[in-house]
């Protein structure tokens, strides 16, 4: 099924705060853009995910503290948005669209090829080598260029099962 990733093979590291030094500077740069601290929540969560790859429970606490919110509130928001990872994911996070426009153009075949070539086996799982996590997502907004993949921040269009192996080569 579509949705967020399930727990993977990546091991827990001791938590290091994100909003110190440069992280703090990046956070404070957000403040003038919004009349409330609360409104900085989505951008702050992006900063966490960019820095750590996922949003750990400790990070939820840290974000809550710096923005004057409660951890429960932040968790409610984090779990609403599917792009925030609440579990560690592979080094490369692959999102593949299977909504109707892509489905009628063969997206399911692309998914099968991805699962096979990454070694993930199933959607949401991380490959044994920790390299990839593949999830199915709803519409990526590139319906005319089916099937699109979002690998980390790279948007790749017109993917066919035959192209999958070659594309994955670029992600070590």
């Amino acid at each position, binding site marked *: 099924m579509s949705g967020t990733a399930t727990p993977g093979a990546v091991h827990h590291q001791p938590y290091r705060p994100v909003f110190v030094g440069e992280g703090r500077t990046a956070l404070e740069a957000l403040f003038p853009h919004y009349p409330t601290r609360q*409104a900085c929540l989505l951008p702050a969560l992006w900063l966490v995910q960019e820095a750590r790859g996922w949003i750990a429970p400790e990070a939820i606490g840290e974000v809550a503290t710096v923005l004057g919110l409660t951890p429960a509130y932040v968790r409610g928001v984090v779990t609403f948005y599917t792009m925030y990872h609440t579990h560690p994911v592979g080094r490369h996070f692959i999102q593949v669209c*299977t909504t*109707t426009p892509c489905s*009628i*153009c063969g997206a*399911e075949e692309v998914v099968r090829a991805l699962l096979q070539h990454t070694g993930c086996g199933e959607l949401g799982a991380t490959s044994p080598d920790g390299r990839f996590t593949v999830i199915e997502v709803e519409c990526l907004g590139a*319906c*005319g260029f089916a099937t699109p993949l979002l690998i980390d921040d790279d948007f790749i269009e017109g993917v066919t099962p035959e192209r999958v192996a070659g594309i994955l080569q670029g992600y070590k």
Partner: protein
Amino acid sequence: MGYPHPSHPLERPLLSRHFGDAGARSFDGWVKRGGYQGLKKALGMTRAQVIEEVTNSGLRGRGGAGFPTGLKWSFMPREVTRPHYLVCNADESEPGTFKDREIIRWTPHQLLEGCVVAAHAIGAERIYIYIRGEFTTEYRILKTAVAEAYHGGVLGANVFGSGQRIDVVVHRGAGAYICGEETAMMNSLEGRRGNPRIKPPFPAQAGLWACPTTVNNVETLAAAAHIVREGAAWHKALCRGNPRSTGTKLFSVCGHVQRPGNYEVVMGTPMKDLIFEMCGGMPMGRRLKAVIPGGSSVPIMNAAEVEDCLLDYEGIVARGSMLGSGGMIVMDDSTDLVYQVMRLARFYAHESCAQCTQCREGTAWTVRILERILAGKGRREDLDLLLDLADNMTGKTICVLSDSCAAPVVSAIRKFPEEFEAYLSRSRAPVTVAV
């Protein structure tokens, strides 16, 4: 990055004129191509004059609802006693729709120009551009363009020397279709779950942080700058069908056509021209089965309805569907409509925000029934059940997500009963959901 097709003679490229022209992306490139003239003209007009011009042009919202843009702007208070906000809806997530992305990708300054024109018209000093999280490339392009615009004097404390302050903040979404609904978008911007709000109050009364707010789609804003530059009469004249639908419209065509992509045509252009001429029709040997013309949330049309349909707000309604966002999903006779309707329902079930009972439970239940039919375990009464659920999910909730789930289900059952019948009578092999 998908590369745009060369313009087709039946198109009228206005917003899409510079698609594919990498030189149009920069500030200097945009200015060289005549950009920011509309803004300069707008700054010389009063707020009321700009609104009047846009009202007279007949421009209607391009995001899906088709609400008259000038009228929407006129709802904003005349006196600015609290901050006014403009929110640009760049959360393009309606399946089948990929036009705003292309506007941002090739002509980010076209969007910024429209944004600043609108901000001037509604008295907003701050613009939030809410871009969906998946548009990573477009986000970078937009951030660069905003920096250039500040440097070029379009944004900041003194827009083009007018003494007016206008700022732009680009805000990234994080994966939620429903944030494309304007009140959900405001909640998301405020750092909340993207739950749609109850209306009233309407955004123009109490929107972002309870201040007067206008939310406009990317394509709408881009068109506004052209209208101010060329005048309302010019825009009004862009019309081949009903006079209440004016201007050009970008149609995103995907699915089973030879040349999928974005096509810009004058309102009232025949749908057949778009599908068969501009897009090259079906793949070899295939026949048209169905079209979802306005993004996935609208009723499905069959081939007969496509036959004489005009592409404007009224024309598509007259043929049993809606113009919506102009995202057109074309399906040929190889398509398993039951399976695709299940896919759509699954999309809505996944995206339901969980607030309203009918939507939270009804979308998921709809998926289960469709899966049961596909698995060859359907019962005759399942179709009546689906229709009854659809009725219970329509017009009952805060936003229209559950209505959107119901629309394709109902229209598919009504217009393509034989597709369902094939599964119910076990004459078609069962399908299990692939992934």
